[in-house]
């Protein structure tokens, strides 16, 4: 069995700071990590490999430094890693990104047929959740998003059964291989990297593919040219109407402040007061 896991290197958003005066992003020194959502998919792929044998290939599209994220995947137990990188990919939106990744996975499949593709539910920097479905459609794979559990995989009949999170409940779905799965967060826990795998990761020669190696001839489908969407402006949010009315009392004692704001709430917003009375009753 051959599983391909799509990952992305992202800035650790927990460590992004906004400049207090200029309200701009301070990018300097923000560490890059593997998109946390991708790790649930990687772990699930490794579990399936533990159960059924086979190989796990990690793939990413990104700048040369994204190699570090792939090494991380090797340290967790991925067998191979491919970095798809080319200046021609710059400025890609989700449509162009899914085209490039689907093409690269197609190239992988020509060497070693792919049974399953995993992708993260979404990224923490883009939050779009579109690249996984996009790859599935491009490659004509069955799509299973928001999977909370893989119930069974039968390589003889080539069918897989999963539980999928839907609105208001969980669906039990059965589909045919090959398919693309995105895992829901919190559904498994990434294993610790073993010493052996850490050494292997350090020495592993990450394969670097450019546009041609990824099997892409038509440059109009990648990068800026292949992206239907454009960012017209980036801006800081406007204040709602005016700044908050700051509650102040003599001495600013907590008790006085609290009584003042509660009194204001009930006198200035009588309907809200009714709601509070009703709810608390």
């Amino acid at each position, binding site marked *: 069995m051959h599983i391909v896991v799509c990952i992305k290197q992202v800035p650790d958003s927990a460590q992004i700071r906004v400049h207090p005066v200029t309200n701009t992003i301070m990018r300097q020194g923000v560490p890059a990590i593997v998109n946390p959502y991708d790790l649930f998919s990687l772990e699930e792929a490794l579990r399936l490999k533990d159960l059924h044998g086979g190989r796990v290939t990690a793939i990413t599209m990104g700048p040369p430094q994204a190699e570090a994220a792939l090494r991380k995947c090797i340290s967790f137990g991925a067998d191979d890693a491919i970095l798809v990188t080319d200046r021609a990919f710059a400025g890609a939106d989700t449509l162009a990104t899914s085209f490039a990744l689907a093409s690269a996975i197609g190239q992988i499949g020509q060497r070693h047929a792919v049974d399953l593709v995993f992708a993260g539910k979404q990224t923490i920097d883009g939050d779009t959740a*579109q690249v996984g*479905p*996009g790859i599935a459609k491009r490659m004509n794979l069955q799509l299973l998003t928001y999977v909370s559990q893989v119930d069974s995989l039968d390589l003889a009949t080539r069918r897989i059964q999963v539980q999928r999170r839907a609105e208001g409940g969980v669906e039990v779905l059965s*589909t045919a291989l090959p398919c693309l799965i995105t895992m829901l967060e919190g559904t498994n826990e990434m294993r610790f990297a073993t010493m052996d795998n850490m050494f292997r990761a350090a020495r592993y020669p990450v394969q670097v593919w450019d546009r041609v190696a990824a099997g892409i001839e038509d440059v109009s489908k990648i990068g800026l040219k292949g992206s239907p969407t454009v*960012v*017209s402006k980036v801006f800081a949010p406007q204040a709602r109407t005016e700044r908050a009315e700051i509650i102040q009392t003599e001495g600013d004692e*907590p008790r006085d402040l609290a009584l003042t704001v509660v009194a204001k709430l009930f006198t200035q917003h009588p309907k809200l007061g009714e709601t509070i009375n009703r*709810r608390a009753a």
Partner: protein
Amino acid sequence: VNAEKSAPRRAGRGKVELDERLKAYKGVWVFVEHERGQVHPVSWELLGEGRKLADKLGVTLSGVVLAAPGADARRFCAEAFYHGADTCYLMEDPVLAGYRNQPFTKGLTDLVNAYQPEILLLGATTQGRDLAGSVATTLKTGLTADCTDLTIDMENRSLAASRPTFGGSLLCTILTLNFRPQMATVRPRVMALPDRDTTRQGNIIEHPLGLIETDIVTKVLNYIPDDQQDKPQLPFADIIVSGGRGMKNAENFQLIWDLALVLGAEVGASRPVVQAGWVELDRQVGQSGKTVRPKLYIAAGISGAVQHRVGMEGSDVIIAINSDPNAPIFDFATYGIVGNAMTILPALTKAFQQQLAVAKMAS
């Protein structure tokens, strides 16, 4: 969509001439999402927003219903009219009983190709995101995810979709210039629910799916409904008391629960609190959590970064407690208290208790 990019590019602000072939695309569509006989309220919220866009463009607003044949499908169309739609595109087929990616992608893609809308809106739910990404890729058009604001750029007659970017500290506006339809998803509760007018009526346009069950690879074996009792229901709560990093530790977070108990409120939290494991994921408010529109939102120890703000700024009244007088939350809260949340919160709990006791005696 574009936030996938490491560095957003700026489009020239000039006018873009649309291809002749794309000028035929007219009208605003909203995909009416349903599960087990219930329409997801986000579809009505989108019809409310779609109405404004359609009026601005001077075009019709349509609901799109894909469902099994029967009374439910007709009822969904009627409800779409009540919530502002002029027409409904209806695709009825037994294989559309319950959402599955393959038949729904084909159905919606075929409808778009046949009737050519310029804008197509879907809820950013597990169903809407699964479907939107698949349809946009099949149609090879642009899709902007999780928008917090939709408007029309009149110069280009195009949809201007705004969403948070850079981990939620800034907003960006995204245009899909020379592709149609322009697709966007919006999360539940971001837009207001429009009034329901039962005198409204409209035309139903039927279209066949053209698939049979044996064509469909994925089968639904079972459906296990959630036990709604155990799950926090933040998106529809009237009152929410939320805590942030400023609560300092899990022990102090109890003060949030104490106030929520007195008010009969739900407890919410900002991302750092959830990441630290003080409360469960279902309580996270913000771009990567839930969007809420309560009547009262009390934020303690929350700075008010964009990532949190977009999830709660639709609240009617916001009370913010923060020790930093320059915290961004004071830019959009209704009332602000500058001080230590650890002393203000217990005082607030007591003040509400007193007020409620008075109200009880009076009634």
